[in-house]
């Protein structure tokens, strides 16, 4: 039983018998905590539905008196982000989608293959290889960001000469392509870890039998492992999606201006120092930025938690 299953399964042991008073205290504390965890989100949503004068003049805990969707419309299509000419955050939302979809798919498929090799096709030194890939999950990105900037700068140069030669850059130097590359590289450790731990407990006898029947490496992978891998694929995709969508450091370093992902645009919007601070628009933008990952959390909460636990190495 994995850690995540333990969380959701009710224990079969005798419950501790509590007096009524103790039970009231327990429930009271739990509800207070739930309130504390919810209140920032509630305030965000309420603020985003108020006109600006009600935000600056009123109480943040008060329900909106004049419900308005104006801040949402403004955040989505009209708000000016930093010094960029593009209005609204929807362009940045699309940037994030264009970046996150290929990055998640590539890193997940590679992770599945790596996990397969590292558990069922072991070779001398497989543990060291896995250990090295595992440590890669935890490095501070500050220690790779300068060389990465140099390399991506080089790709940009290639792209410019390609444009001179052919009129197309073929993706060289494109911020979206750059971010896909970066996220695939630094996501590999986690995806490999997830699949490795999942395939570790997959019965090796099945694979041995298929090998005796003459099935090839890819046949075994496709016919035997893939049909049994749906849960771990969901876990990995959710984990990678959340991490890459929420990334800020790489996005702000390697994709400036109009090409920036959602988190960078949100930070620029909120911290623009010119003019009146439109808190309601900022909050609407923040909720839009959070919506995809929150949606995934609500739909696939179980798998989300499982990914988190696996990310803490203990599988």
């Amino acid at each position, binding site marked *: 039983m994995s850690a995540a299953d333990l*969380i959701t399964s009710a224990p079969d042991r005798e419950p501790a018998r509590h007096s009524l008073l103790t039970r009231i205290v327990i429930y009271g504390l739990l509800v207070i905590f739930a309130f504390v965890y919810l209140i920032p989100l509630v305030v965000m949503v309420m603020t985003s539905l108020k006109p600006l004068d009600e935000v600056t003049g009123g109480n943040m*805990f008060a329900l909106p008196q004049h419900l308005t969707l104006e801040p949402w419309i403004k955040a989505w299509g009209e708000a000016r982000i930093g010094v960029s000419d593009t209005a609204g955050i929807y362009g940045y939302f699309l940037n994030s989608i264009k970046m996150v979809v290929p990055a998640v798919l590539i890193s997940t498929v590679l992770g599945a293959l790596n996990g397969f090799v590292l558990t069922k096709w072991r070779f001398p030194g497989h543990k060291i*290889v896995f250990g090295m890939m595992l440590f890669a999950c935890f*490095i501070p990105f*500050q220690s790779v960001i300068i060389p990465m900037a140099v390399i991506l700068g080089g790709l940009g140069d290639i792209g410019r000469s390609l444009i001179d030669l052919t009129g197309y850059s073929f993706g060289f130097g494109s911020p979206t392509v750059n971010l896909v590359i970066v996220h695939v590289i630094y996501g*590999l450790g986690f995806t490999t870890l997830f699949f490795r731990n999942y395939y570790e407990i997959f019965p090796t006898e099945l694979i041995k039998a298929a090998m005796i029947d003459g099935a090839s490496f890819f046949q075994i992978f496709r016919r035997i492992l893939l049909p049994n891998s749906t849960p771990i694929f969901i876990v990995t995709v959710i984990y990678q999606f959340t991490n890459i969508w929420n990334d800020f450091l790489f996005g702000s370093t390697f994709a400036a201006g109009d090409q920036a992902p959602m988190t960078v645009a949100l930070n620029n919007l909120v911290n623009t120092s010119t003019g009146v601070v439109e808190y309601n628009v900022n909050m609407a933008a923040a909720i839009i930025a959070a919506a995809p*990952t929150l949606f995934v*959390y609500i739909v696939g909460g179980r798998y989300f938690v499982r990914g988190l*636990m696996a990310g803490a190495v203990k599988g």
Partner: protein
Amino acid sequence: MSSITAPIAAEPRSRVVLRARLQDWLPRLVLAPSFLIVLVFVYGFNLWTVFLSFTNSKAFANTNLIGWANYEKLWNWTFETDPPSGWYTALVNMGIFGGLYVVFCLVLGLTLAILLDQKIRGEGILRPIYLYPLALSFIVTGTAWKLFLDPRIGLEKAMHDWGWTSFHFDWVVNPRMMIYCVAIAGIWQTSGFVMAMFLAGLRGVDGEILKAAQIDGASAYQTYRRIIIPMMRPVFFSALVVLAHMAIKSYDLVLSVTGKNPGGAAELPSTFMYSYTFTRNQMAVGSTSAVIMLMTIAAIMVPYIYSEMREKPQ
């Protein structure tokens, strides 16, 4: 006849051998690109950054080696308190933020997990509420808390509206106190994760042990204090390691809670590295601080990964 058939028979055999050999090597060939990528882009780049920390690179990377000068510089800045150097501020803030973040996440996480483990009605509703902040990006969390704590429109104003006029809470705009707000937002975001880790640990405790304790007349408090919490030691250790490494890597949260870290008041090693490398054109100093971050995390994670991998049965 035989002189004709022999080469025909030999050719498929060598093809079979070749294919078998390819099948032998295929798994390794499949893994090789990923491993090479990690080797180059993680380990190679780390070494590259180490190399840069021994140069005098400014806006661009160069190869003029200057020995340990950058490390000496950071070492001296560590003790430069009047006026505090950016590095000194970063280290002090790291201590404040990291300490509060780790301790409060552990305490809150364990408390919530124990409370939830009391056969609670509605656990299925409460648990996801404690966990949802984890789905948010630190930028969103920071944006929310910045508004929430803003004295002009947030908590302070709401308290004044409700008649508590002496209530004063301006930490988020007070350079000296900003880092505490970063810690509050960070704890809010991550404590649910620690709760989940402890809850999994608590649910894994063998019911027989608890039954025995009950028969011996141990109270619920005693059972937790003497039996269950000591059994949580491995979970506690895992959570500590994960939290410590997350604290060191924290970057986005500082920028979003404080509004781009005005005047470097909420400086952390991560923001120090970034500003020296990309805005102050002192790439070598930035690299040096990155190497120190890397070494700190390696000191935490390498023993942890080693022990995790050794525990697992083959």
